[in-house]
């Protein structure tokens, strides 16, 4: 990877904490006024990665003959056909929610990124955290977070979903909520008491090392607090209005009974356990 070692450390602000499995090579070429990204070929498909087919070298000579950066994030398709969630979530909703809203967030994000190369080259997770800027979100945050949130949401559902979790996830839920029924009640209650637009999440809290139900407003995502989301439910009106009009209760119950993918939750928990030690080692007291 051709880098100008000495200057990389100084000019690049974000380079070092890359998630190794997801990023290809990136280097910075310092120039008089600003730092730029040059990426050699990279094509990464991580668990939650962005799709960046190629980035062209951007010239910054004083004549402003800069060629446009063509890197961008792509709109991921849900892991099922758009009509696969019928009759619980209609094809029409998927078409407009994914094809309209989600697509607009992606395109909006790419447009914003055209103007701001310092945000280039992140995975979606990283971009969300960076643009959150510790509570003073940058203008790109809204689009970035909503892209992430919707990717996560489509994957949190499956045709023939619902029912109950098994094995480790069920055990952890029972440990942290008492029973699955109790968890379900809490989740539904959170969804119904959310004021305005937002999301409801089952997250694994890193510090407390336990599962919790939380609700967030607008585009906020628990990644910014370093929690690990396991399941999410979109409570923006556009998510349910065409199918259920104002009947939020019905929508939430249908989600719990027929849509939520506990398989995905298991996979996410398994990955989360690489970052959170859930089991207390049993240390015998002499």
């Amino acid at each position, binding site marked *: 990877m051709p880098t100008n070692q000495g200057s990389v450390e100084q000019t690049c602000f974000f380079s070092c904490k890359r998630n190794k499995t997801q990023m290809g090579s990136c280097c910075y070429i310092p120039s008089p006024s600003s730092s730029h990204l040059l990426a050699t070929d990279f094509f990464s498909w991580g668990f939650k990665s962005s799709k960046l087919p190629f980035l062209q070298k951007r010239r910054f000579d004083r004549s402003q003959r800069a060629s446009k950066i063509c890197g961008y994030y792509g709109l991921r398709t849900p892991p099922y056909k758009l009509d696969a969630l019928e009759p619980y979530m209609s094809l029409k909703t998927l078409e407009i929610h994914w094809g309209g809203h989600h697509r607009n967030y992606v395109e909006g994000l790419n447009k914003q990124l055209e103007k701001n190369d310092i945000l280039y080259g992140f995975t979606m997770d990283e971009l969300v955290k960076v643009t959150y800027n510790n509570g003073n979100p940058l203008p790109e945050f809204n689009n970035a977070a909503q892209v992430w949130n919707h990717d996560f949401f489509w994957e949190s559902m499956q045709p023939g979903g619902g029912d109950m979790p098994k094995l480790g996830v069920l055990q952890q839920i029972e440990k942290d909520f008492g029973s699955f029924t109790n968890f379900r009640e809490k989740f539904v209650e959170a969804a119904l008491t959310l004021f*305005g*637009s*937002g999301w409801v999440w089952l997250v694994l809290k890193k510090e407390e090392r336990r599962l919790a139900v939380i609700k967030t407003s607008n585009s906020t995502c628990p990644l910014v607090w370093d929690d690990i989301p396991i399941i999410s439910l979109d409570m923006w*009106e556009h998510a349910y209005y065409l199918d259920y009009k104002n009947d939020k209760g019905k929508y939430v119950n249908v989600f719990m009974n027929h849509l939520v993918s506990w398989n995905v939750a298991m996979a996410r928990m398994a990955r989360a356990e690489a970052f959170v030690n859930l089991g207390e080692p049993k240390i015998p007291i002499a």
Partner: protein
Amino acid sequence: MAFRPLLSRTLGLTQTLTHSHSHTLTQLRGLQTFSLPDLSYDYGALEPAISGEIMQLHHQKHHQAYITNYNKALEQLQDAVAKGDSSSVVKLQSAIKFNGGGHINHSIFWKNLTPVSEGGGEPPHGSLGWAIDTHFGSMEALVQKISAEGAALQGSGWVWLGLDKESKKLVVDTTANQDPLVTKGANLVPLLGIDVWEHAYYLQYKNVRPDYLKNIWKVINWKYASQVYEKECP
């Protein structure tokens, strides 16, 4: 409505009445409760700018829900105040702000709309029209500004044309969720509010909020806005 006291008598449910039915009871306790105001036009009268289906749902379901929950929160607040339960008093504030705000905002909204046949869309003449030209240059510029701010609002909220009582200046502002305009400035009086929550337009315009904002001007009741303006700036 006549059936409510009848219901409370025949069922003998003095304590377990839902709030809308305990109207007579709570009046005795000195708590003012609220009920859904009627529209002065039919649900379908604003077509094609806003569909009858949306108007009916918006009025009968959404606004009614805000009122029901507002009344409930007020009753709980009254209890908490009487008992001196400060933590409940404080905990109820968000429910009151949200549901009370929803009631306030929607009550204004229904008056901000009127069918074309009743003058909907007709620009204001008189002092409000003059004030708009002075502050914004022209009606078109104002409409542009409000539509742009409404379209740019993230999440749910309202976009307002307000009057600052103190400085007598017109302002365009937005509020989030159901916050009334007064949360943006104690001197602000709402002249015109447009609901940009998705429930206000989704069934008809889907995700194209700008189209909703373009079309709603055809049914805006400038007469009401002028009345409010003239009351504050005689």
